[in-house]
Each structure stands twice: as C-alpha cells, then as structure tokens.
C-alpha cells in the first residue's frame, strides 16, 4: 500500500477528522491565524485556548519554560473571556471549515454554574465540539483541588455542560488522581461524548541560585516527553472502563509516539508541546511518520487502536517462569555461603 493511500481519518463523537492529530488546547489557540496555520500544516482538528467566564491576563513571566524533559507552564489561563471568544471561534470555524478541519472550543470556569454559562455562551459560535477543561481549581474546595480531582465534581460539571449545549462534549481529565478510570466512568455516566486525557501534571522547578521557583506562579503544569508514560497509562486505564472515544494527549512528538497512544486505546492524539520542537510543521511530520509506520507494518489505524489491551499469544507451555522472591539458593556459589536471612 502506498503511503498516500493510507487512511488516517478517525471519528470522534460523530465527527470525522481527516487525521487523528488534534492541536491541544493552549497551544497557538489564541488567534484564528495561528489555528488556521496549524490546520494547513496538517492538524486533523484544532482545539482553541480555554476560555472562561471573564477575561484573564494570566500569570506574570516566567510562565513557560523548557526543563530538558519537557515543558512546565503556568500561562494562567490567559483568555479574552467567553464574550470575545465567541467571535474568535466563529471566525476560526469559518476558516477551518474550508480546510475540512473541525474546531473544538475549550472552556473552563470556577463554579459548576459558570461552566454551564460559558458552554451556553460559546455554543453560539457553533464549534464542532466543546472540550471541558476541568483541571482548573474548584473554588468550592478547601485545597483548591481541580474539578477533575473527584468523580462527583467532575460529573457535576459534565452534567451541567451537557444540559447547557446541544454540541457534543469532550471532558478533559487530569492525571493527578488516584484512579483516572474512576473519574472517566463518572463523567461518561454524566453524559460525556468523548474524553481527552490528559492535561498537564502539577510540577515545580526551583532555581538553585536564587532558591526561588522558576515560574512566577511557583507551580505549573508539566507537559512534553516526561508526560508521555503518564498519559499512555491514563489512556490505557480509561479505555478499560469506558467506550467513548479518547483524545490521548501528553508527550506525543513523533509518529511512533502517536502509534503508541492509539495502541493504548486512544481514537485521536493531542499534540501540544511538540509544537515547540518544530512549530506547526510538527503536524505534517508526525502524520507522515504515522503513514510510514503503518505502511512499513502493514497495519491500518483501526488495527493499531487498543492493541495494547490484548493478551500476547504464546504456546500454552510458554507461561513465564515463577519469579523467585530472592536469589534462588541453588544459584549461590557453594564455595562461599552467604549470610542474611533474606538473601
């Protein structure tokens, strides 16, 4: 099969994407021009920067740094507010439609009611999908835990947003929970049409010289290569318990990373920090690497999806040998008996 003939299109909540690579929220999602540029460069869908109830300036710099293993950011949900966002989304959507690339709006809020209000508002721009970013602090929670932190708060937001809009809803989950599968099940039961996993992992960098945190906001969210194993695990665990499509997001920078994410059970793949590595061209490169990989392995996207969940087939005889709980006595050199009860 030729590479050109490889079908990369996927479906998310009834919507067809020309390819599974979704621009993640918060990356270049501030301007129609930049979102269109990503679509032209090969993105299969575009997520706008998260918009909240009111305009926010975001945090003072440093607000995004490369620590070697990935990025740590505390942009601070800078956004023009839902009001202005409607116009931005409408303009963007019109331009993306010509390219056949769907637009995903992203929303956040400080209370469940405000989530519903922003969803309703933003729906006027008729984005193809609405992603609900529940990684923001729940003002009702003493420690400022995110809505994504508890099944109850996550489900409450989901239900409120579903009631407020007719547009299909993606709920975006956070990695800092004891069981992301439990949260996933709760939001799907509350009506989520799809999931996005994961948002950044809370982290901090400290400048040894000054002794102060590098980000002016002190803590921030970790993304990029260091996040990949966390994201793969999240997607895998979620795919075990829910049937809705998952946009697997976190540390994908190559076609092979994307194949791994689909193998974990994702239907589409979010691309964020990789845009830092080579700009919007990351989309074209990753899509090309995926095609090359699929051709080289004689597989279709559908065959790749979820295959990490299967059991390896080995002849019955080949079940692994039992693992000794300590070096087996018979392998110790008899010449020198070893001391220690455990050894």
């Amino acid at each position, binding site marked *: 099969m030729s590479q050109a003939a490889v079908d990369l299109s996927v479906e998310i909540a009834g919507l067809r994407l020309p390819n599974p690579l979704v621009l993640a929220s918060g990356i270049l999602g501030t301007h129609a021009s930049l979102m269109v540029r990503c679509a032209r460069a090969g993105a299969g869908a575009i997520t706008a920067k998260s918009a909240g109830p009111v305009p926010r300036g975001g945090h003072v710099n440093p607000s995004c740094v490369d620590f070697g293993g990935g990025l740590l*950011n505390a942009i601070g949900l800078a956004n023009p507010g839902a009001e202005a966002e409607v116009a931005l989304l409408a303009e963007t959507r019109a331009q993306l439609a010509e390219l056949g690339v769907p637009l995903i709006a992203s929303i956040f809020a400080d209370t469940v009611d405000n989530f519903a209000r922003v969803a309703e508002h933003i729906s006027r721009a008729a984005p193809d999908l609405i992603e609900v970013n529940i990684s923001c602090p729940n003002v009702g929670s003493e420690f400022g835990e995110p809505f994504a932190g508890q099944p109850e708060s996550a489900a409450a937001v989901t239900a409120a947003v579903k009631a407020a809009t007719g547009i299909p809803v993606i709920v975006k989950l956070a990695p800092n929970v004891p069981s992301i599968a439990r949260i996933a099940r709760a939001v799907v039961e509350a009506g989520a049409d799809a999931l996005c996993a994961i948002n950044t992992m809370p982290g901090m960098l400290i400048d040894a010289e000054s002794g102060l945190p590098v980000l002016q906001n002190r803590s921030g969210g970790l993304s990029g290569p260091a996040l990949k194993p966390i994201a793969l695990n999240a997607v895998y665990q979620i795919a075990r318990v829910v049937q809705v499509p998952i946009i697997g997001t976190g540390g994908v*920078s190559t076609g092979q990373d994307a194949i791994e994410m689909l193998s974990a059970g994702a239907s589409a793949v979010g691309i964020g920090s990789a845009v*830092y590595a080579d700009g919007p061209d990351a989309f074209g490169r990753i899509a090309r690497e995926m095609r090359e990989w699929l051709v080289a392995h004689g597989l279709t996207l559908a065959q790749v999806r979820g295959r990490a969940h299967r059991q390896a087939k080995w002849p019955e005889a080949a079940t692994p040998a039992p693992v000794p709980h300590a070096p087996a006595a018979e392998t110790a050199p008899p010449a020198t008996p070893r001391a220690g009860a455990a050894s």
Partner: protein
Amino acid sequence: MTDLARSEARAFLERPAGLPRPCRVVAAIPENYRTRTIVLDTALEARPGQFCMLWLPGLDEKPFSVQSAAPAAFTIAAVGPFSRAVHRLAAGDRIWLRGPFGRPFRRTGRDHLLVGGGYGVAPMLFLAREARARGERVRAVVGAREARDLLLADALREAGAELWLTTEDGSAGLPGRVTDAIAPMLAEDPPDSLYACGPHPMLAALARLAAARGLPAQLSWEAYMRCGIGICGSCEQEGMLLCTDGPVLDQPASV
C-alpha cells in the same frame, strides 16, 4: 528506547531554550538619561536581531535584544517596573538569562542601511559590527524624539558606520523622522537592503517606503511575550509568531 524516540527526546533536550541561567553584571553603563547597557559575565551564541529573556526571580521576565554576544550585553530603557529594576543592578549583581531566541537579521548584499528608533538601536549596533567586520558598507540612521533620547551613536561611529541622526524636535542631527533622512538615500544611493528595529509606527512607515522602492527590508517587531518559544500564541502578528518566526520579519518588497 528506540532510536527514533531517543533522537526526538534529545532534540527536545538540546533546544537552546532551557531554564534561565544565572549571570553576573560586569558593568552597567549609562547610555542616556533613561537607558543603560548591562554587560554580563557570559557569552552568547547569538546573531544580531535575536533576543534573550532576562529574569529577576520573583519579579518578572522580559525579552531584550542582544546588543553584543561576547560578552553578552543588553541596552535597556527604564520604562516600567522590570526595566527600572534592571537599572538598579550594579556590577556583581545577578540577573538570569534564557536564550538566545528568535530569527536574526540575515545580511543581504554588501551595502546595508540600518535604522534604529529608541532602544531599537541595540540590535543595529550588533548588526553593524558584524557587517563591518566583514568589510561591508554600513549606513546607520538613529532617530529619537529629542537629543537626549539618542542612543549608541558613538558606538555605531566607532564600529565604522556612516551615521545619520534625526530628532523630531531638531535638537540634534537632522530635524524630523528617520524616514525623512532615508528617502533621499533611497533615491540617490540605494543600499542593497534595509534593516530596522524600533517603534511599530516607524517600522510601518519604513515598510511602506521600502515597498514603494522595491527594496528588500527586514524589520524587527515587538509583542508581549509569554513563552518565548512559539507555543503560547501571545506574540502573534498576522499569523506569524514574533518569538520564533520573528522578531525579524522579511518585508516583501512587493507590498
């Protein structure tokens, strides 16, 4: 890890950005009543037109054009909280630096016209030195509101640039704006290329002038920068990211 994944992860790691690295101020040289050049105890692999993010922990981090790479130097106007704090630094004090970032000026031809407005002269001095070191012709026009705002004129002259000064109030050099000084040059002895950094209205005027004459121009623009590495979108200008596609943008000669 696979070779591919490894090479990618390393590419990520080897990006020049990294974390802010601590430097010490070696000298803080007053340039005019509100502008200082700070010289640091580090050298940069930087090209003219590139910028660094300077950080004062717990305060703020802002972009500044590289005025000199080895040693690293920046020419900074005290206009707000951060730049005023930088002005308070003395030799021996620490300041942190990320970068260099951004796309530099690329010299085209051997006869260059450099235009600097305000602290926009800083990258022009760097560019002038680079071009002169290669024996190329440099004409430099430095514009300001009044005489006391003029910047780095002596340094440009020492670098071997033919120098024109303009002030809006006529208190020094030619009265008027940089465009007034340039128009006759473009007509009588046009350079191979135009390079400029300064306030956006100045750049816009130069863009029109260059376009009218079909002269290749490279203009360095400014925007509020957050990430400085091309992912947040803050520095957008007409579909371009000023932190990575810029700050120097080619001005198509055919506008």
